């Protein structure tokens, strides 16, 4: 039962990443692209945790944590660059 459910979740998140990628490429506005990239980071965290669960290993959580932090920092950096023309003033 868990196997089937995790396969379904894998499929859902993979499709979600593809939709995000499409949005990153075709979005007309820069705010939309930043938003799509941020969503892609969150979906990547979910995929990593799912993969760690499927393999039964605890190593992937550190990776997921790092991706979560990088995602937050990079989104804020992009937004600040658009807002101020500078990241650290």
């Amino acid at each position, binding site marked *: 039962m868990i196997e089937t459910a995790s396969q379904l979740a894998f499929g859902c998140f993979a499709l979600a990443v593809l939709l995000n990628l499409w949005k990153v490429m075709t979005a007309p506005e820069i705010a939309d692209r930043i938003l799509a990239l941020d969503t892609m980071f969150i979906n990547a965290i979910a995929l990593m945790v799912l993969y760690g669960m499927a393999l039964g290993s605890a190593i992937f959580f*550190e990776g997921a944590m790092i991706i979560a932090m990088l995602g937050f920092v990079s989104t804020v950096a992009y937004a600040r660059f658009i807002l101020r023309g500078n990241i650290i003033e």
Partner: protein
Amino acid sequence: MASLFEFLVAAFLVMAGIFGLVGSYGLIKLNDPMSRLHAPTKATTLGVGGVLLASMLNAAAFGKYFSVHELLITLFLFLTAPITANFIAKVHIHRQESRETMPSAGEDDHWATHDTPEDEEQRNAGRPDAAQ
């Protein structure tokens, strides 16, 4: 008892997958840029929360280890998602809106993000101490 945990983990996984997909689909489907902000920041965060809960339950019930790392990631995501959304909304106001389309800024003439160097000069014109 084992089958109850199995059912719970599977339910969390299915729920998480559906929420994640809905969040990303909403990013494409919704028309207004500011309603597009809702889909990923709420639904996708919930989706990841579901995966992390399922992983934690799975490790505790069937794995060899018990870990609360997932709670750390959940906490971090729940803390940072509103900040990210706020920054993206600010970018939208900065790039897409103008002084005419924004609501009143109260006692000020306009919102700070639409301020220009000329406005600042004008404000500082009567104040000799504000040379910089």
